[in-house]
């Protein structure tokens, strides 16, 4: 209960900051050369100034910036993100259509990165200085230094073009009309490469942190106490070291949630996945600032949610949290 309260309190504390930041962003976007209407007109192949004027009035773009900001924030509070000029639909609808793909991609990548990173990190720490450690650490460094989009492209070259094992892009086989399990398998096949691509750099980070964290924990006094009790090495790792070493990892997941979302922009573009990241890219290219702002808002909510969950998990793992440290 205390943990939930603490997490909720942190949640509550992050919301006002978020609104301030969004207000800042909104004003920033006022500085942008050209607005949505310009973009629309350009897309329609030009048009007369009268139409543009009318459209501006329709979107409320003729009002002073402060009034626009007020209107915008008020609508945000009601979760009304406005109208997407390019897609001709409410931004909320457009985002809702794209969100599941991104959530699926992030969830799969996070799971892979976390489990893989934990396992490899523990393995490397156990064999420190020996070949498994050297191999794992070297691979970790390489993964960390590889640009994800390049890794994705090379994956496409190898697995889609040369070997033909996996599809080169997209979320599902268009027009195949799969249902049920076949559909699930189809989506899964499409997500293998994107998931690997997005997960790799995080896996590298997690394994480095886990290795360092394990080494640190294994040198602590209470591990020596466990040894003095006659506990074997495996027992020490499972019962004493692992849970303690996981604490920094859990913190890291919260800190990197935003980075991961940013990474999905690139990965979704590489694999032509119809997700939030690709939507962000499209709205930048097409100057659909309303949609871009909406995406930023939703992303921030997503990151805040992840951090809320992380707080809860951390509180469960570490009894000291409830005591207020």
């Amino acid at each position: 209960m205390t943990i939930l309260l603490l997490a909720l309190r942190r949640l509550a504390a992050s919301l006002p900051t978020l609104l301030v930041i969004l207000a800042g962003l909104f004003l920033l976007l006022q500085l942008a050369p050209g607005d949505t209407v310009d973009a629309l007109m350009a897309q329609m192949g030009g048009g007369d100034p009268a139409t543009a004027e009318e459209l501006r009035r329709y979107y409320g773009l003729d009002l002073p910036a402060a009034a626009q900001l007020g209107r915008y924030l008020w609508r945000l509070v009601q979760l009304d993100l406005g109208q997407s000029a390019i897609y001709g639909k409410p931004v909320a609808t457009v985002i809702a259509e794209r969100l599941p793909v991104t959530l699926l991609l992030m969830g799969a990548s996070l799971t892979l990165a976390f489990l893989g990173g934990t396992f490899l990190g523990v393995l490397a720490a156990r064999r420190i200085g020996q070949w498994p450690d050297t191999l794992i650490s070297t691979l970790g460094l390489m993964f960390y230094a590889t640009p994800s989009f390049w890794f994705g492209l090379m994956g496409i070259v190898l697995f889609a073009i040369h070997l033909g094992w996996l599809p080169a892009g997209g979320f599902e086989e268009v027009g195949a009309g799969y249902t049920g399990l076949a559909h699930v398998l189809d989506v899964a096949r499409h997500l293998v490469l994107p998931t690997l691509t997005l997960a790799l750099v995080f896996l590298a980070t997690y394994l480095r942190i886990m290795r360092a964290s394990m080494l640190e924990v294994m040198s602590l006094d209470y591990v020596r106490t466990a040894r003095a009790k006659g506990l074997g090495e495996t027992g020490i790792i499972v019962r004493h070291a692992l849970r303690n070493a996981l604490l920094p990892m859990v913190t890291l997941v919260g800190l990197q949630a935003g980075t991961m979302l940013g990474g999905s922009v690139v990965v979704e573009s590489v694999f032509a996945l119809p997700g939030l990241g690709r939507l962000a890219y499209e709205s930048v290219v097409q100057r659909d600032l309303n949609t871009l702002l909406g995406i930023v808002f939703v992303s921030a909510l997503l990151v805040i949610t992840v951090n809320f969950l992380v707080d809860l998990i951390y509180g469960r793992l570490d009894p000291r949290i409830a005591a207020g440290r």
Partner: protein
Amino acid sequence: MAALRRYARNPAALLGAVLLLLVIAVALSAPLLFPKDPLGLAGRPLQWPFVNPKVWLGTDASGRDIAAQIFHGARVSLLIGLVATVIAIAIGIAVGAVAGFYSGLVDDVLMRVTEAFQTLPNFLLLLVLVAVFGSDITTVTVAIGLVSWPAPARLTRAEFLTLRNREFVQACRVLGMGDARIIAREILPNALPPVIVYASVVMAVAILLESALAFLNLSDPNVASWGNLIGAGRGVLRTQWYVSAIPGVAILVTVLAVSLVGQGLNDALNPRLRGPAPVKAPA
């Protein structure tokens, strides 16, 4: 000096230094070896590497020399990485030092702002900044610096939080030293090593961010950037995959070099963090 000797004894760190020097040499020699515009037409498009000695790494779909783009791209990557890192570290140290030293309300406000920046996905924020201010190389560099400062700020703050309660800082206060002097002359030099080490991470990320931006065609199209080249190679990925592959290797090597140097510095500056805890030396 002891740190330098420890660094030299670490093979991975030495490899990093060698690779980094190599990349710097490539960047410096670019105008000498490839004096012409790297984005100009150099020959028949899509020549494979190691076929035509005049364009030994081949040409891309527009007939531009890949080797020239790689060499000039090294300049861009290093420059953007360096300047963005300096911006991020400078902001980070300023914010972190003030927040960590004063705590209380100042800390609260500064940390809220930092958290807010961390809540917004940095690449998305970068997209917004580029969308608003355009994508010439200066803007991109400053924008990357602006989205990268929260982590160094948190690190600096953490260092300041522990150091400011150390007895040597209290001793300076008791001597009657002013806050500004304590921050700049007493705490900062002791807080700096981990931040400097972290700068290598910031630089690696900055190079990756720029290349991702360029890959999406959102960076400056008028400079030879590795990311641009990878993006340009996408269209011919099916057959001429080397156009995308070669600049990717360049990025990998550069980021790897920066990371290895950073890790080597870390191990050299904090020797006790390597491996299991050492024996308590009998005094």
